[in-house]
């Protein structure tokens, strides 16, 4: 009889464990493939050991993609954080306008990113798109949004910002609403100014919440795919070929499976490292915040 209670929780997780293995299996298989030169044109692959990885790291295309990915992730996460926190602060003032608008805050977030990119693609069309039409009175009619390297990257980031700013705003708003009121009352009694209160009270106490949002956004934008695929397909040239797009092109378009997977494994390692560092940092911040409360 003694073994039964100890075994019970294991029985409950067995199905999930099996399903997880079903997902881990292709991952392991992919890792295994990267040691071969498996491609559509070579269905009987040879063992090449780490050659795929050395090729990745010596390719200029990889470093270009890595650079674009970092620019994209940092740019998008930073813009979303600033904009999202600002929107949350404005909504937290809870004017009548704010209460109405809050209800529709999530709208862009619930639209599939690929659909969002399609929407923006239509709007940013240089000759017939509505954005240029609206800008024409200001003498900015002919902007080649997605047809210049910088424009394409900025446009992609803009779509990311459009979709995911509500994500940061929603988490920041939840944080703002859970802050204790007494420090703010004390600060008001002491006659502290708005900026001082914001810098010294709101921001430090809000930071753990915002950081959760930033971590999610940064790690997600490192592996961006949908938005760029639909908006620019990596172009013009190689200007927006982020790592997952590069992997897609190599593995699916050119059918060099092993080589394409090597790209994703490298990206996976980067995301994993970023996650470790950020989560550790988050833990520290949350502990500090807990002590402060």
């Amino acid at each position, binding site marked *: 009889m003694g073994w039964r209670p100890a075994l019970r929780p294991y029985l409950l997780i067995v199905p999930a464990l099996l399903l997880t293995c079903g*997902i881990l299996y292709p991952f392991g298989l992919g890792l295994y493939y990267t040691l071969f030169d498996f491609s559509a044109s070579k269905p009987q692959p040879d063992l090449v050991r780490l050659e795929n990885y050395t090729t990745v790291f010596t390719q200029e295309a990889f470093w270009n993609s890595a650079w674009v990915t970092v620019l994209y992730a940092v740019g998008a996460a930073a813009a979303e954080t600033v904009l999202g926190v*600002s929107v949350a602060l*404005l909504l937290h003032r809870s*004017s009548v306008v704010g209460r109405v608008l809050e209800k529709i805050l999530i709208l862009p977030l*619930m639209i599939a990113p690929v659909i969002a990119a399609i929407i923006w693609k239509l709007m940013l069309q240089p000759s*017939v798109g*509505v954005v240029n039409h609206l800008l024409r009175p200001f003498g900015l009619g002919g902007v080649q949004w997605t047809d210049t390297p910088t424009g394409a990257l900025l446009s992609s980031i803009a779509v990311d910002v*459009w979709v995911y700013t509500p994500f940061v705003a929603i988490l920041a708003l939840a944080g703002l609403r859970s802050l204790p009121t007494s420090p703010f009352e004390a600060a008001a009694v002491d006659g502290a100014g708005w900026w001082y209160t914001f810098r010294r009270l709101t921001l430090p106490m809000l930071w753990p919440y915002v950081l959760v949002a930033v971590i999610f956004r940064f790690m997600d934008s490192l592996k961006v795919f949908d938005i760029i695929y639909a908006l620019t397909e990596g172009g013009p040239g190689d200007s927006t070929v982020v790592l997952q797009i590069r992997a897609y092109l190599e*593995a699916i378009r050119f059918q060099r499976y092993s080589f394409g997977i090597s790209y*994703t494994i490298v990206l996976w390692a980067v995301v994993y490292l970023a996650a470790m560092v950020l989560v550790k940092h988050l833990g520290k911040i949350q502990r500090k915040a807990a002590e402060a409360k």
Partner: protein
Amino acid sequence: MTVRRRLVGWLADAALILYFVFALFPVAWMVILSLKPANQLFSTYFSFSPTLDGYRTVLGDSEGIPFVRFFVNSLVVSVGAVLLSLLVGLPAAYASARWRFKGSENLMFTLLSFRFAPELTVIIPLFVLYQKLGLFDTYVGMVWVLQLVTLPLIVWIMRSYFADLTPELEQAALLDGYSRKQAFVKVALPLVKPGVAAVSLLAFIFAWNNFVFPLILTSSEAQTVTVGALSFLGGDRPKYNLTAAAALVSVVPPLLLALTIQRYLVRGLSFGAVKS
């Protein structure tokens, strides 16, 4: 002072409205675009003679794109993925919330790492594997791969709900004469029901909105709306009105569901890291 305060209030409201114009205009523009007749597509902006022809074409499966079928496919694979995740994930979430043991912690962190793993790492091998197994372009194949999206979400969030529930309620049920299974079904489950509903809908939305899995692992039979909407952009003449109509039709289900679970979104979106 009051004048200044009122001015600040106005400015804040103006800034908010500005953001919401940015957030809502694209959707409004899609509505406009979708209502345009094909011959006024490039010659007009805001004044045109509106028509539902775009929707008729998209939902009438003309242009050789079976959009209704894509819509049904999205529905089937998303619901299937959520149901499978619930079936498998609820017991796991419960176990890991009630008993901290090594296996469960490992499982939890493996699942969390799925949330942040680049999708292609798994999909490219699956692309090869599915073709061998005959799962390419099938519902089963899609439901399987969508577990990558739905299972971590459901397990992590339900764990946080179960963890909020004091185990003494179930212990009381045990002493009231119920078995462990009955205590779970009659006491724990009803109490997390709102959470289950909310997380199921959220998982459905994420499954529905997924693009990269159907893009690579389906071609026609099991293709979903997110990939389908993109196909209106192809061809010689871009059919913007049809693209807009298809995009709008495909965002309706997630938007409607999202509005019903607003209250639970914070916990869902943050994987249980932030509770409101």
